């Protein structure tokens, strides 16, 4: 399963390194983006990717590479510290820049307004959030955010895991990742 990893962590850590290693072992990773090392401008909300340069951001930087890789993938992995229940700004920069991959026109999904697909196929979504210690409210909001993103980004399947970095062991992390991969259709 062609996989793109968006590493939205703010710095390298033994836990994130361990997670990435497990993912590389389990998946055919076509692109791994360490977002903090990349020059990706914030989305300007200009709609240029819809009405000036359809399908591609008007900003010519690494954000285009990420959007291109995601559009061509079968699985996208978000790795991020859980930040006020959401994504880090590093990850969110890349996610905001995925808007070219959908159309400006609207449709409804379960009675709710969303944007139409631009492409025939979209990747499934696996999100792994990191928090230092258990925080049920942040965990809950994070999971809801991923579910909402999966709708808007037309991901047929999605899975979310939250790892408590001061609590969870490496073995537990491996088991969790295998479980999550199963949820998005990756066989062990």
């Amino acid at each position, binding site marked *: 399963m062609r996989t793109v990893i968006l590493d939205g962590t703010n710095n390298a850590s033994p836990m994130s390194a361990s997670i990435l290693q497990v993912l590389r072992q389990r998946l055919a990773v076509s692109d791994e983006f360490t977002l903090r090392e990349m020059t990706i401008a914030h*989305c300007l909300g200009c709609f240029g990717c819809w009405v000036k340069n359809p399908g591609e951001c008007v900003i010519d930087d690494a954000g285009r590479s990420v959007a291109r890789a995601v559009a061509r993938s079968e699985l996208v992995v978000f790795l991020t510290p859980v930040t006020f229940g959401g994504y880090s700004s590093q990850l969110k920069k890349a996610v905001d820049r995925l808007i070219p991959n959908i159309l400006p026109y609207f449709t409804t999904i379960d009675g709710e307004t969303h944007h139409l697909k631009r492409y025939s196929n979209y990747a499934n979504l696996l999100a792994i959030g990191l928090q230092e210690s258990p925080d049920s409210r942040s965990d809950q909001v994070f999971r809801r955010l991923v579910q909402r993103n999966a709708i808007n980004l037309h991901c047929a399947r999605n899975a979310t895991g939250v790892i408590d970095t001061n609590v969870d062991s490496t073995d537990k992390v491996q088991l969790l990742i295998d479980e999550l991969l199963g949820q998005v259709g990756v066989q062990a």
Partner: protein
Amino acid sequence: MSKIKHALLLVGSVRARSSSAGLVKGLGDLLMSQGLTAETMLLIPDTLNRNWDGLLAAWERADLIVLSFPLYVDSLPSYVIRGLEMLAGWYQGCDTNTTKEFAVICNSGFPEASQNQTALSICELFAGQMGLRWLGGLPLGGGGALGGNTPQEAGGMMRNVVDALKLAASALVSGECIPDQAVELISKPFIPAFLYRIVGGRSFKQQAEKNGVGHQVKARPYQ
């Protein structure tokens, strides 16, 4: 007597004439009509990179902070999240025992105000982490219809939004939570969703045609 004297209105949009700015100005005008002083700052990359000290000084002056932002992919724009990260980092090293009040307005390009809920929850969690007193959030669907105007200027179909802001302002000046009635009012669709979808789609098509790419809107450059 309320301890709320001065409000900081943060606009989390990089657009020149944004609905986020119009909404918070509309609220700000109401706050000032009830005796508060207010100042407005942009919570955008330029501020974070070049006027961080100015932002912190404004933050410290304020008793009430209102953040207004557009919904980007179910959440806050990345530069607003960056601003909140920086504020949280500053707060951790800060020696303050002054509790400030925090409220937000989120506007979305989708007609359903409910789609803003996750973003509001994120703001609430930020408030908790910062030791701010959370006074609630106002979710507006179809916010693009404001076109940079305040709801008061837009009039007509924005009357529910105006009424919601009035209720919210009355609560906020007293340090009280935004009432449910204000949330219900602002959440009411001002046109039917199906009509919004039609008008919105046509608007994008027209913009594309004006830019000479009307026939390319459905291009697939990454296929």
